[in-house]
């Protein structure tokens, strides 16, 4: 495995009961790479992110993060299922933004952004608040720090969600359809924030989205998922203008020309 590979799914299979959501999946992401995952509903896009975020365990194969197995630990030459301690160690490198935001409704925006840095990273309240203010500034919500999430619009909530994940300084940011739950007029503000992040050289990004124009602008690579495997991948220009796989062509046609 070359040094610049940060995420590596090595023949990963994930099942829900008899249903194989991920089938022998091979998938690599380089350090700093921005990868967009597209594909039909139920193809396993969210599952890839959730496996990586350690929210869903896998059945077969190995996931590597920064060279270390994610769901396993090395004991001698063998790989054994990971302990909670190992998972916590690995999670430090990951941050996730959810489709439904999943903010903590009983905490102010400020607390949403500082609670984990204080409790998990051991920052002082003051350090955490400074960090939070910078992030709120970045997502354009400096004046909302004392509000509770239900008092914000969906677009504002999602920007808080992004800031909350960034407050943990992850190496990899996972976005699962971050704008799908938003009213159309609120999508732009959120995409702007993600776009800004995409310009950061070090940050690795995995984005599941149906915003094809946006995907095209920000990604280094687009992966087309279908039935739990990658059918086609490549630079956005190639995937969007001259897809080779027939399933990709059909999917893009359906998404880009829904009226037809």
């Amino acid at each position, binding site marked *: 495995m070359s040094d610049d590979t940060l995420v590596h799914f090595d023949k990963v299979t994930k099942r829900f009961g008899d249903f194989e959501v991920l089938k022998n999946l091979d998938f690599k992401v380089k350090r700093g790479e921005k990868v967009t995952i597209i594909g039909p509903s139920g193809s396993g896009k969210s599952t890839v992110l959730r496996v990586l975020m350690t929210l869903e365990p896998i059945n077969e194969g190995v996931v590597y993060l920064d060279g270390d197995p994610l769901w396993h630990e090395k004991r001698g030459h063998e790989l054994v299922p990971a302990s909670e301690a190992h998972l916590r160690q690995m999670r430090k490198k990951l941050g996730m933004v959810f489709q439904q935001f999943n903010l903590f409704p*009983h905490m102010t925006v400020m607390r949403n952004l500082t609670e984990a840095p204080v409790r998990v990273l051991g920052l002082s309240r003051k350090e955490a608040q400074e960090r939070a203010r910078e992030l709120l500034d970045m997502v354009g919500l400096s004046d909302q720090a004392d509000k509770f999430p239900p008092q914000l619009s969906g677009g504002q909530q999602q920007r808080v969600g992004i800031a909350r*994940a960034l407050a943990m300084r992850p190496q990899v940011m996972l976005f699962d359809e971050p704008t799908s739950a938003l009213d159309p007029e609120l999508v732009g503000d959120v995409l702007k924030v993600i776009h800004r992040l995409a310009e950061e050289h070090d940050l690795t990004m995995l984005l599941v989205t149906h915003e094809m124009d946006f995907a095209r602008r920000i990604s280094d690579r687009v992966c087309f998922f279908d039935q739990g495997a990658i059918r086609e991948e490549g630079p956005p220009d190639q995937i969007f203008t001259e897809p080779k796989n027939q399933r990709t062509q059909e999917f893009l046609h359906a998404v880009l020309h829904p009226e037809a």
Partner: protein
Amino acid sequence: MLDMLPTLLGGAWVTVELTFWSTLIGALCSFAFGIGRLSGNPVVKSVSVAYIEVFRGTSLLVQMFWIFFALPLMGVSLSPMTAGIAALSLNIGAYGAEVVRGAIQAVPKSQYEASRALNFTSWQALWYVALPQALPEMLPPFGNLAVQNLKDTALVSLITLSDLAFRAESLRNLTQKSTEIYGMTLLIYFALALVLTAVMKVLEKRIGRWKAGGGR
């Protein structure tokens, strides 16, 4: 008739003490065993399930008799007050544990997932994320349980404790004025219940404040 009031009020004070302590200790039992029932540790879980099912499945009166009359035969003698508080607490705790468990389970799974993504331990997720959201849901049923508990304290008169019910019964034996005595006793219980309900309402308001702040 009013000359009987001090006697009754003296008994009412015992009732208040019993209610206060058993509701407080019962609440602690509720959290301990309600959370215990959700534990991943099989020993903690089965102990909690056993406790909850035994105390919900048997009568409070028998529990109280057992603690007061049977435990001494095994070398543990408790004063009537301690035995009464113990029985009431354990009983109400078993019902409360189910309230706690239900409220915690009602916190959406997505909240735990967000906690996990932020690398909280499961205890931190419970303590900082789930419980604060579950607490406002618990309070109304807790209020009902507290009032239920107040009413149940009358049973301690059967283990020689001189509470409100006990004194009412003694006065009636003495004076035969059943109507007045039980009329006043009812009123006092009712007044106590009103106070208790009011206290719970204040708690509900304070603890649920972030909820009231919701909505755009």
